[in-house]
């Protein structure tokens, strides 16, 4: 019942979000979801040897990336963050250039696995596979922003697993000492591959660790776009106005296996996954849009069709793009002369 009432209440205007904003957010989430479906299809067809799914995380990713100012703020995502990178300016074609390891892949020119995002132009810091190594970089960038007197901030995303690494602790500790303009976002999907949260931490609420670093932390429903957006807006304002870091924990779920190499049946029951799918952030967001009269079943269907076509076109273009020239493997070990 409360659920109902809350659903019907206007949750976006108080947050300064317009109908246009909501539709744009919806479009981005749906694009990520469709890219995911496409990449798994390609994987089954043997065209994509390795894919990293995003499904289930689109809500918290789009919501927490949205308040960042493109062209000014810096994104430090991890491999799961396809939707964060779409918000930052990557296109479906960029995604699939990475999936196919093509020369024009903006992240790495086909050198890294898919979903190892990076683009100087878009302000997305190049990421690697080792978990949590990007977090000290994020704090370092935030320090540089403060040092240079920029009014920019850093958004840094990672999974629950990353919170166990020493680098996570060291990076948050430094951010706390220097009140850096940064927001740390945990996409807590309850597992590090197969390891459940109960074996990763002695607490269920990871955001309380922020206290130990001298700044604020908050845990929100990661499938509730408005809750994630509200927390992020507050954190971004705090960071930008000199209020220091914030740690946001978005509780969400990964619908697919960890990657195309994983078999999640070994560690999650189908029931658990089905239960989680009922809380699909996209479905919840669509329900809100419909209740608010901003869209309808038909419009959503039409949008899906439009985006699917766009994604299919991106897949084709990426597939037909040239592979890297083998000799280029020797390039960029060090800066090139001139």
């Amino acid at each position, binding site marked *: 019942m409360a659920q109902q009432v809350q659903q019907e209440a206007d949750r976006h205007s108080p947050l300064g979000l317009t109908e246009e904003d909501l539709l744009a957010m919806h479009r981005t989430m749906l694009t990520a979801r469709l890219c995911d479906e496409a990449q798994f299809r390609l994987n089954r067809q043997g065209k994509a040897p390795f894919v990293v799914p995003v499904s289930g995380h689109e809500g918290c990713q789009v919501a927490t990336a949205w308040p960042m100012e493109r062209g000014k703020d810096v994104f430090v995502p991890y491999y799961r963050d396809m939707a964060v990178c779409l918000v930052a300016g990557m296109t479906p074609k960029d995604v699939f250039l990475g999936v196919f*390891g093509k020369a024009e892949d903006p992240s790495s020119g086909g050198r890294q*696995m898919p979903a190892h995002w990076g683009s100087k132009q878009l302000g997305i810091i190049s990421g690697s596979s080792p978990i949590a190594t990007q977090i000290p970089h994020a704090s370092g960038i935030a320090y540089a922003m403060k040092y240079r007197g920029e009014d920019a901030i850093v958004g840094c995303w990672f999974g629950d697993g990353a919170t166990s690494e020493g680098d996570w602790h060291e990076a948050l500790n430094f951010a706390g000492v220097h009140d850096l303009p940064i927001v740390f976002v945990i996409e807590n999907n309850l597992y590090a591959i*197969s390891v459940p949260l109960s074996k990763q931490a002695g607490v269920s609420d990871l955001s309380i660790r922020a206290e130990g670093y001298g700044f604020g932390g908050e845990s929100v429903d990661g499938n509730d776009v408005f809750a994630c957006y509200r927390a992020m807006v507050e954190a971004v304002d705090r960071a930008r106005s000199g209020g220091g870091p914030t740690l946001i924990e978005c509780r969400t779920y990964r619908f697919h296996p960890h990657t195309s190499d994983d078999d999640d049946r070994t560690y999650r029951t189908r029931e658990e996954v089905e239960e989680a799918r009922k809380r699909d952030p996209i479905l919840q967001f669509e329900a809100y849009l419909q209740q608010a009269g901003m869209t309808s079943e038909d419009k959503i269907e039409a949008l899906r069709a439009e985006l699917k076509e766009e994604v299919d076109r991106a897949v084709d273009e990426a597939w037909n793009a040239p592979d890297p020239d083998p*000799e280029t493997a020797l390039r960029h070990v060090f800066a090139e002369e001139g």
Partner: protein
Amino acid sequence: MPEKNLVTAIHDTLWDEMKADDRVLVMGEDVGARGGVFRATAGFLDEFGEDRVIDTPLAESSIVGLAIGMAMHGLLPVAEIQFADFIHPAFDQLVSEAARIRYRSNGDFDVPMVVRAPYGGGVHGALYHSQSIEAFYGHVPGLKVITPSTPYDAKGMLRAAIRDPDPVLFLEHKKCYRLIKGEVPDEAYEVPIGPADVKREGDDLTCVSYGLMLHQCLEAAAKLEEEQGVQVEVIDVRTIAPLDKKTILDSVRKTAKAMVVYEDNRTYGVGAEIVATIAEEAMFDLDGPLVRIGGPDIPAMPFSTPLEHFYMPTVEGIHRAMKELAEF
């Protein structure tokens, strides 16, 4: 005798050791319900329980550090690092701690620990799931570093490693996991840590290698014998540290020609020590140049197929080098 692939031999040996001695336990990321991402501990959780099959938090430095503590308090931990590329956060625990505790305590403490790590490329693993790490750890006195490349050696050396009173870094080439099969006796046996192994005898030239490259050298050697009757002696280093110089030098003195093949970045790699050792101790027995084949000096293997192929030394390349050296 049953035929097994490399990872099955490791799985079964671990299983037997866990059965035989409850001081032995396995720990690492996803070793429990998931049975390890390469299935090396599949079924262990059900058989041995949570206390002996520890799904650790995602934190390599502590995986090694915890294992050190367990080893100092009566257990025989076998820690799995999911990919060798991710062992780097534990560098300090391995170098400053595991390798030095016996020495710094003047022999009072020991660390009977095994750290397993799948390494190597050719599996489309890109920059961070393809690395070779043996050169870093081979240079650390106090650590034993081994790289069995056949199911038979893997079983015998894993058993030896678990029983070894010192810390052993047990490297498993992940491309060999399912590619390399061989007969493995059911009964327990040890293959001692230390001695290199002549995997193929020959009088015409000595080829020293290990890991995946060993198998490529064997293939190239077989091809060369067929084609021209050239007999290449192929040595499997097997134990990177401490290095068995004698087996290598004896062979080189016999054949008077030597080449070394490894997958890791060439410069400052394991092959450098082997070539240097031959040059210092057997130069005057040689009647041909010393040949070294290694991976290019780029950070690691890229993802895209053409780039990855560019990195890996090939059977053809090795064969060509063998031929040239034989004809020298």
